[in-house]
């Protein structure tokens, strides 16, 4: 490290002096990071560290697969893999699942792991006073029995095609009865990393679990630092304070890191369908022609280039493009301002329309909103922007449906089912679609499920429920020597189990 510059006065004067002559960052050899420890950064701080008691994605992004494990695990490609359940068999009628548990597994506090823990975890999640954010995952379960220490039998009320996938969610991880209550601040799981320390507002530290049941982690120590501010994140990355940033909050900085040989930029995809959500029952928006006019008025590629600096794949419906069942419907509403004006005039709004556009904090919303507002203005639709914090968005838009338009990205995996819900902020009630969903839930066969998913996608696009913009990209930036980080994020997680320095 170089010698510290003399007195603060000198540095202040120097900084002020050099303020105007901004110097492009020169190539400086990065500080030599210890070979077996990694500092990963992420944008949002988890409120606490118990994935079974909170919906914040940040909780899973810290603990999923690192500290806590469920019966099954979702890997980097989104496939379901065995975890605490070594193997499982499914009955013919798809109603009973028998899981054979891994042997020789202990919790981080040394206590043993057996089927009783699994039963406790599931009963706790399904209980009346449960505070599990995804309680719905367990709806289809009728009962959980433990014939012996190594096996768990789960019987369902009706067949559920996605049960194995659901049990791979963070909210379905297995916790020990003795430590469940304290997991919020002292998470005790069975994962390859043991919780070290949590400096609130700054970082979470974890160390390798020496007596892990499976293949041990390659990293001895991992620190997850919280840096929300994009510029601060860029500076930290360039200054070598952090080794990797799973999903960089500022797409505009990618060009900067691509040009720098010290770093590797990996653009993947996420489960985040970014949409211009429409309140389908609110005044003029109940008229499908108006909704289609909006779809034609928005130039998706311009929004991606402007808001996300080109990172993101356009979508025509509410489904993740990387998923095999994806149907490309981007062509159904091409960018055609004239057609949009015509549709609006046809719907009786020739002289223009004023709609409220509420934007939650993320930059895709704030920037996308400005671009879309400008584009809507071209066709005579005045979008009055108001930026709201998440609590305000939840209160007004999500619960109160007191909005015309909003921009949000749904990052939960496989969440097309939300359009079938009785109450959801789109206010889209369609019997056919609901029927499709119930049918989907009960089919187990893969190809049949994909067919149904395709029909659902076509239905949403036809009804133009929302203006489907693009799939949120995952901007991975890490030191070129770091190997093993996920390229995509099929589920909200930073799985460090396979990460190492080469």
């Amino acid at each position, binding site marked *: 490290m170089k010698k510290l510059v003399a007195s603060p006065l000198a540095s202040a004067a120097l900084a002020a002096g050099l303020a*105007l002559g*901004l110097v492009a*960052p020169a190539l400086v050899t990065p500080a030599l990071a210890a070979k077996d420890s990694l500092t990963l950064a992420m944008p949002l701080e988890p409120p606490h560290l118990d994935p079974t008691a909170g919906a914040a994605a940040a909780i899973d992004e810290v603990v999923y697969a690192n500290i806590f494990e469920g019966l099954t695990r979702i890997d980097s490609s989104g496939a379901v893999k065995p975890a605490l359940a070594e193997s499982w068999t499914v009955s013919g009628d798809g109603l009973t699942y028998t899981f054979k548990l891994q042997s020789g597994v202990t919790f981080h506090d040394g206590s043993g792991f057996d089927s009783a823990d699994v039963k406790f975890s599931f009963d706790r999640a399904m209980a009346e006073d449960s505070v599990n954010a995804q309680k719905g995952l367990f709806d289809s379960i009728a009962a959980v029995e433990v014939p012996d220490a190594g096996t768990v039998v789960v019987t369902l009320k009706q067949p559920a095609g996605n049960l194995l996938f659901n049990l791979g969610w963070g909210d379905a991880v297995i916790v020990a009865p003795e430590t469940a209550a304290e997991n919020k601040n002292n998470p005790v799981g069975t994962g390859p990393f043991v919780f070290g320390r949590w400096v609130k507002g700054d970082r979470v530290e974890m160390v390798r679990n020496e007596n892990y049941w499976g293949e041990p982690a390659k990293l001895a120590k991992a620190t997850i630092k919280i840096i929300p*501010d*994009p*510029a601060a994140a*860029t500076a930290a990355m*360039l200054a070598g304070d952090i080794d990797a940033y799973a999903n960089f909050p*500022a797409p*505009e*900085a990618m*060009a*900067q890191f691509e040009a720098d040989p010290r770093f590797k930029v990996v653009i993947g995809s996420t489960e985040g369908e970014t949409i211009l959500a429409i309140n389908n029952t609110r005044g003029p928006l109940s008229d499908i022609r108006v909704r289609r006019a909006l779809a034609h008025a928005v130039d998706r590629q*311009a929004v991606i*280039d*402007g808001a996300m600096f080109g990172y993101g794949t356009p979508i025509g419906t509410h489904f993740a493009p990387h998923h095999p069942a994806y149907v490309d419907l981007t062509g159904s509403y091409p960018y055609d301002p004239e057609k949009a004006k015509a549709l609006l005039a046809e719907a009786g709004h020739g002289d223009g329309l004023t709609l409220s556009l509420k934007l939650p*904090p993320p*930059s895709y919303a*704030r*920037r996308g*909103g*400005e*671009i879309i*507002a*400008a*584009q809507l203005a071209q066709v005579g639709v005045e979008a009055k*922007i*108001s*930026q*709201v*914090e998440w609590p*305000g968005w939840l209160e007004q838009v999500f619960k109160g449906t007191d909005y015309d338009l909003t921009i949000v990205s749904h990052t939960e995996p496989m969440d097309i089912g939300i359009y079938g819900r009785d109450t959801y902020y789109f206010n889209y009630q369609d019997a056919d679609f609901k029927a499709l969903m119930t049918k989907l839930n009960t089919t187990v066969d893969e190809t049949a499920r994909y067919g149904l998913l395709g029909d659902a996608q076509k239905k949403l696009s036809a009804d133009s429920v929302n203006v489907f913009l693009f799939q949120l990209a995952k901007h991975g930036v890490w030191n070129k020597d770091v190997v093993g980080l996920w390229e995509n994020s099929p589920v909200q997680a930073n799985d460090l189990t396979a990460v190492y320095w080469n």
Partner: protein
Amino acid sequence: MLSEARAVSLREFWLRGRGQANLMIGLAVTLLLIAVAVLSLVWTPYPINAIDIPAKLQPPSAAHWLGTDQFGRDVLSRIMAGARNSIAVSLVAVGIGAGLGVPLGALAAARRGWVEEVVMRFNDFTFAFPALLSAVMITSLFGPGAINAIIAIGIFNIPVFARLTRGAALSLWQRDFVLAARVAGRGRTRITLDHILPNIASLLIVQMTIQFALAILAEAGLSYLGLGTQPPDPSWGKMLNEAQTLMFLAPQLAIFPGLAIMATVLGLNLLGDGLRDLLDPRLRRLR
């Protein structure tokens, strides 16, 4: 009543003011700012919110003197429009501060007793909160936006003017010419209007320019946090915030709004200093 005192001082103002560097520079910068703001109402090189994605992040060029921002909008136009926003927010905020603060302060000095106690407690109370924190609470309470920023900043100017007015008025109430007015049978309110306010007018004008400068900084801070003026209306603070993430890609984006804020605040402070020397000879030796 009041006009008499002012008429003379304006002529005198120009005669004595000419020679002072501070005053002239300050006045020039402030007038330039106002001119730019007014001009932006009518004309700007490019439409303020015209998005042109392909032309984004261009460095300063003949077409765009200060280059374009992340959405391809002309930075010069947005800075001109930003001036309008800064002035409006700061002017109204300082107006609220003075409008409520001065009468409160004068009342406290005239009435003394429990009235003074109440005003002073209110002052201590508002001073107890760091200004920015309370602005954050107010804007998150009633939602972000220029109006709420104005209210938030305005509230914090009230105690400044109240305290200043009370202090100056208290010393004036001891002066013989005020006693003479009481002997002549004038009431407290009439004395405050006839004698107290005209004699502290110069002090207030100087303080207003200083508070105006601080209000601009506060507005920039609030819109930096996203709580001030809402997009698509441009504000210097917001431009600075957005530019920050592009610091390495397009550094100039962060410079121009920062310079605009700095120049405005510098101009106003110089104007304040110049006015103080001019209007309050007693302070002249403090230059």
